[in-house]
Structures are given as structure tokens and as C-alpha cells.
């Protein structure tokens, strides 16, 4: 089961516009978005304690170091949980419900969960632990989102 991300670019832009236009990231996300453009999961690892930490913070919450090393951890992840959103909780979503969004745990960074719209029909049968694959998603603010779709074989 594969498919396109359910949220088209204009909706992604509208959703981003819900947030504060002036809020800046304390740790630039460029390496993550660059990886997403190649369909790769790229995450920050603490230079001090060597743990993956998502979302990136100014200092590592575990050891308070402030240096991050970005690592490519591949494309594979497992579905940790999901919801099918039926009620549009923002105006831009009104024409796009129902859609499915989930938390993905990268196989090579199991302490991390990545939020992703899932490129599956709302009625798709999903299961926790199901294998999912990263792929490039829509462009947003000069970068690209990472989205996940079910791996080729759908476990039921």
C-alpha cells in the first residue's frame, strides 16, 4: 500500500501559517529537511552523550551539551500510534478530512518519534509496529517534509 501524502502543498502552507510567522528555530532544521528531500531520515545526535534527540533543543536534555551531529538513519520506521482525523481542527483541513497522521519510530533511532501524515486511505487497516518507509513530502518554507507510507507489504 503506497500513496501520496494526503495534504497537498497549499494546505501545508496554510497549516504552517497558523503558527507564529516570526518564531525561529533554536537549532536550524536544514539537515533534516535536506534529508527529507532525498527521502532519508536525518536526525540530530548529541555530541556529548551520543543519544538521538528529537525535537532538537538548544541543549541536550540528558547531558546539557549543546553540540549536535546530524546522522542519516535510513528510511525504515515502525508505526507507533496513529489517529484518523475526521473533524477539521483547522480551517485548511476542512476539505481534506478524514486523513491519517501517525507517530513513526525510526528503526535505527528507537528513542525518537516522528510525526507524519500517512499516505494511506483513511479506511486503511494499520497496526502498531507496522513497517513504514520514509519518502519526500511536500515543500514547506524552502525545505521538504518527510512523510511515511506503509511499506510494500501491509501487515494485517
Amino acid at each position, binding site marked *: 500500500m503506497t500513496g501520496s501524502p*494526503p*495534504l497537498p502543498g497549499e*494546505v*501545508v502552507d496554510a*497549516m*504552517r501559517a*497558523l*503558527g*507564529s510567522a516570526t*518564531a*525561529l*528555530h533554536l537549532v536550524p*532544521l536544514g539537515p533534516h529537511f535536506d534529508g527529507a528531500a532525498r527521502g532519508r531520515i536525518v536526525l540530530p545526535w548529541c555530541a556529548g552523550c551520543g543519544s538521538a534527540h*528529537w*525535537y532538537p*533543543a538548544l541543549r541536550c*536534555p540528558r547531558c546539557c551539551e549543546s553540540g549536535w551531529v546530524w546522522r542519516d538513519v535510513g528510511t525504515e520506521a515502525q508505526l*507507533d*500510534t*496513529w*489517529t*484518523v*482525523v*475526521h*473533524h477539521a*481542527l*483547522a480551517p485548511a*483541513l476542512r476539505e*481534506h478530512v*478524514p*486523513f491519517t*497522521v*501517525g*507517530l513513526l519510530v525510526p528503526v535505527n533511532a528507537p*528513542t*525518537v*518519534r516522528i*510525526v*507524519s*501524515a500517512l499516505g494511506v486511505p483513511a479506511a486503511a487497516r494499520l497496526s*502498531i509496529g507496522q513497517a513504514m518507509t520514509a519518502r519526500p513530502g*511536500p515543500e*514547506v*518554507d524552502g525545505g521538504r*517534509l518527510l*512523510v511515511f507510507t506503509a511499506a510494500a507489504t501491509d501487515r494485517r
Partner: protein
Amino acid sequence: VGSSPARTACIAGVGESAYLPRAEVPFVHLQLDAIDAALDDAGLTPADVQAIHTESLVMPSLLSTDKLIALGRFGNVRAATYHSAYGAGIGQAVVAAAAAIEAGQVDTALVYFGVDFGSRPGAVYALHGVHPLKRDLEFTQGFVGQPAYFAMFARRYAHRYGMSIDELRGALCEIAVRTRANATLNKKALRTTVLTPRDYHRARVIADPLGLLDCSPITDGAAAIVLTTAERAADSPHHPVEILGAGYGQSLLDESGVFTQNPDYPRLPFVRDSADRAFAAADLTRSDVDLAQIYDCFTISMLLQLEDMGLCEPGEGPAFVAGDSIRVGSALPVNTHGGLLSQAYLMGINHLVEAVHQLRGVAGAAQVHDAEIALVGLLSAREHTTLLLGRER
């Protein structure tokens, strides 16, 4: 807490505005109604108020302390302070107000809080848009709004404890139905129609597996609490309520990450810290509690807190809510006013008001017989405050 009995801080007054799906007047009127009611309730006047405390994420933009003071009624205020966020912050405002009284810094303090989510564009859902990580990594994926966050918690909870989604929804249904039964006893509740399991299961889906009746109604409204010394409270019209113990817990994650990155997801370990600290401070046990008011923005958030506050073991919440609990008249009534789910989404200040009503013995049809100790659990995104309140002896 180390002060003389005469300086023990007591809650002497509580007040509420009308609770409405959408107010037809500016929010300030609701908040002033609530403050007037609380001061009247305490038998005090605005001139008696020496300190003002409130929460720090909703209130600064809605009705800041300086705007409140500038309304001209609080000329004797010598300290105005914001505390942490949302429900936990309301609890912290009460704790800090009491501490300042017991330290002798002031004699009387006002805690105020309200919401305009019924009137505000974007309601409560866009609150997190101030966080760039949520804006760029979550909103852009369609992950916006607290129902979606808690729906994911709910599914993960069911998986962790070996439940089917139908079994989980059965437990959440118990919470919704029993909380609604309590709301039918409360004149201020927004949702008072008797709710049946059939109604619950037929309600439209919001974010699967949560339906409309798993979610609090979006509300406009305000409440206020007046604290003063036991000596002064002795002259108040109502029986004073004492803070027997308080606890606070927090996640090391910030608000951007706490809904998704908690290592023990979907558990809320900081809730356990908060509750344990409060019980230790009060030298009480869970079995001493006569009633509980627990932050129930969603049915699943109440289920999680029943467990994480130690009222039952992790994974045993469904059995706990299926037994003789929650409903007024049961062994442990919870959210006797109908909670956020059925009374109003006031982020927990209404839980404190109801606890005070119960301990005074003035909760009307919802009154818990011989209520002496009330447990109040107030959740925020990454924080939790627990208060144990008692009828002052």
C-alpha cells in the same frame, strides 16, 4: 507550613462567571463577574487584595495582571505574579498565593483565570502555533489540536495494556457517562442531558478513536479564588478550606516535544511525581481522599491520571472506572461538577471551585456525604500540580 495557625492560608472565597459556549460580552466582564463573586463569597472587598496570581500562557494576552489592576479596583496590590502554564499553572498560582500568605508577605491574595476559547479565532487548537517546531513539523503534517494528540495517546494506551480499541472505548464511555451523570446535578454545567452508552458510541468521530463525547466543550468563562489567613477567614461567611499539601511535577521535554517524545509514552511520569509529593506533604494516603477533581480535557486524559496519580495501578484504569467510582454516591466520586468534559473547559479552575464547594458542604445535589479531603489534579502539557484540600478544623 511552618507558620502560626493564625497565618495558615485558607481559601475563603470562590466565584464563577456564567459558563457559555460563546459569550456575547468581552471576556473582561466574565472575569470581573467571577472576581466580584469570589470576593463577595469571602466577605472581602477589592481593597483587601494585596497580591494577584494567575497562569502564564493564556492570561497575559487575555487579561494581564496589569490590565486587571488598571481597572482601578486593586489599589492595594503589592505583588502581581504569573505562574506556569494552563491547569498546572492555575494550581501553582494557588500554591504561591498560600505560601506568600503563610510567609507573612501579604494577608489576602486573589487567583484568577478564564478562557475565551468559544470566541477566539482558532479556538484552543492554535495555541501551540507559537512553537516553531510544532508549526513546521506537526501543523504541516495535519497534526494540530489536542484531540489529535490525545487520540494517539489513547491508541497507544490500548496497545500497551492489551486492549482492543472497542474495549478501550468501553472504558472511556464509562468515564463520559458517569461524569455526565454528575453534571446533571450541577446547575452551571454546559452539558446536562443524560448520556447513555448508546449516545456515546453514536457520537461522531473527532479523531479516531476519540469521539465528540470524549472531548470537552469549547467554552468562554472565568473563575476566581480568594485566599487569606485562617484568622481573617474565620470571619468569612463560609467555612474556610485549607491547603493540606501540594505537589508539582514536570517533564524535561518542552511543550513542543512532550506530546510525542516522552520515553514512557503514553504515560505521564510527571503526574506521579506531582501526586506523590502532594500526599507526602500532606501526610495523607490515597485512601484518605473523599473525592477527586481530575483534569479531564479528554476521557483518556482522566484515565491516564487516575493511574498516574496512583488511584489505581497502570493499566487498571478501565477496571477502576467500571467499578463503583466516579459517580456521586460511589466510593470515590470524581469530577462531581461534571468536569471539563461536561461542566465547562475552564482548564481546571472549576475543579478547584467545586472542591471548595464540596468541602464546605454546599455542592447541592452533587454533595459528597461528609466530604473532608479533596484531591485536585491539574494537568498541563508538560506539568502537573496536585492539591489536597481539607475542611479547616
